[in-house]
């Protein structure tokens, strides 16, 4: 399945106002990997995701998805394999019912209406919001909106799922459910989040960004327990890895 490799080659991006948000990022993500991208506010995580999806064009470097370089010509082809859930679900839900929103992608893939229906139903079921089918997206609670946004991306059966801070403003139970959905998703996942406990649970690999640069890239466990590194990046060791006040040992020692 080498054709689903996601590769960033020395990416640079400068915003029109001169702000350099991404400065020389390279990585290679294999099919089925699940990668967390972490870093302080303003580190350049969202910008990086937008470069990967072709929303922004890099100033230098290139993005290669499944051996195909992302250019203006290949953009539409490549995008059919990508699904991105935005930080703010309001930006993503623009139809009048949840059903139509989830059907928006498949309809653009020119599937016939029966196939569209099938995909919509299966996506809604997966996320557990079949009952919201006919509701208007703006009528939903924050968590339900997030779930709908995820369903609208799953219905396109992407090979690569990209999520920008998917757990923010979810209550603990909804967060749990989302994590279950995500861990059941067998293709490539790229997730940015400040919820490091979620990253620890879902991702095998973590890339740490600081000021537009990748300052670390490795197994999640190693990185998230590295106190100096995390401090340097303006982060903290996840709570679930904090030392136990009773026995005084860090939990990561356990395994």
């Amino acid at each position: 399945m080498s054709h689903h490799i996601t590769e960033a080659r020395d990416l640079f991006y400068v915003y029109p106002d001169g702000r350099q948000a991404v400065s020389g990022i390279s990585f290679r993500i294999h099919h089925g990997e699940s990668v967390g991208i972490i870093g302080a506010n303003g580190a350049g995580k969202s910008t990086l995701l937008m470069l990967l999806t072709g929303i922004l064009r890099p100033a230098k470097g290139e993005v290669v998805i499944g051996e195909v370089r992302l250019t203006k010509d290949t953009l539409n082809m490549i995008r059919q394999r990508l699904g991105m859930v935005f930080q703010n679900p309001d930006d993503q839900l623009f139809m009048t019912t949840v059903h139509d929103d989830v059907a928006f992608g498949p309809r653009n893939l020119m599937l016939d209406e029966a196939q569209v229906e099938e995909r919509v139903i299966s996506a809604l079921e997966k996320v557990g919001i079949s009952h919201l089918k006919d509701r208007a997206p703006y009528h939903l609670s924050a968590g339900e909106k997030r779930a709908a946004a995820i369903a609208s991306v799953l219905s396109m059966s992407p090979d690569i799922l990209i999520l920008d801070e998917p757990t923010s403003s979810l209550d603990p139970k909804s967060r749990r459910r989302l994590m279950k959905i995500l861990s059941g998703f067998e293709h490539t996942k790229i997730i940015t989040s400040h919820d490091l406990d979620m990253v620890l649970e879902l991702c095998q690999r973590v890339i740490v960004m600081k000021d537009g640069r990748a300052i670390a890239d490795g197994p999640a466990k190693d990185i998230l327990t590295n106190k100096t590194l995390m401090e340097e990046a303006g982060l903290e060791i996840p709570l679930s890895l904090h030392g136990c006040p009773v026995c005084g040992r860090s939990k990561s020692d356990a395994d």
Partner: protein
Amino acid sequence: MPNIVNAIYNIRGFDELARQDSFIHRLHPLAKLLATLVYTVVLVSFDKYATIALLPFLFFPVFMAAAGRIPAVPILKRLLYIEPMIICVGLLNPLFDRGTTSILGQTMSSGWLIFISIVIKGSLAVATALLLMATTGMDGIALSLRKLKVPKIFVLQLMLTYRYISVLLEEAARTIQSYALRAFSSKGLKREVWGPLLGQILLRTMDRAQRVYDAMCLRGFAGEYHIGKAPRPSWGDFLYVMGWGTLFAASRAVNLPLWLGNLLTGAVK
């Protein structure tokens, strides 16, 4: 502020009503739009002194509301809200027109007659437009517009405007609320914040437009707005428009209430 909140609920309310299921809801949106348009044109084609002759035009909105299971209260509430404007303009007539007119064998102040006529026409037209919305919904309107060959970029833009109204109304409402919390006054916005307050919502809006577009593209959007299964117009739809059209034409040609009254009073005699 209450303005904004009310607007949100108005829109939400209509969305919800339009998602019901009834004979009227199942009609093709275009049929409903056409019937309403014919209705409005025939209604306003009555001259300015028409009053009793307008009454048969009550049947159409009553039918739509009843058959479409639309509760009367919200529609009547909206009517009350709109009415002051019509009443204002209407009231200028008795002020400026002190003449009299003969009607139904009585002489009446023509200004007041015009006033009554305007209020009846206004209420009927407004109620019917609202009922159209309550039984058709915005998707239906978009579908009819496409059927009427309105270019898709306009329809798309209209739908996006519609969709984002709720989001931006909430955003504006929250901004005004936080302003009120620190301004300790519930009057209007002070001059010094006009630019920054509205301007910042505007800039955020523009960024949001960009993100919306990106999100659409990522889901394969290429300029065509697929509304999905489009109901096909049926004979029922055709008959609906023709039937009401005939009734409107008949009521326009013949003063039905007067005829009815003649019949009844004749019978009584």
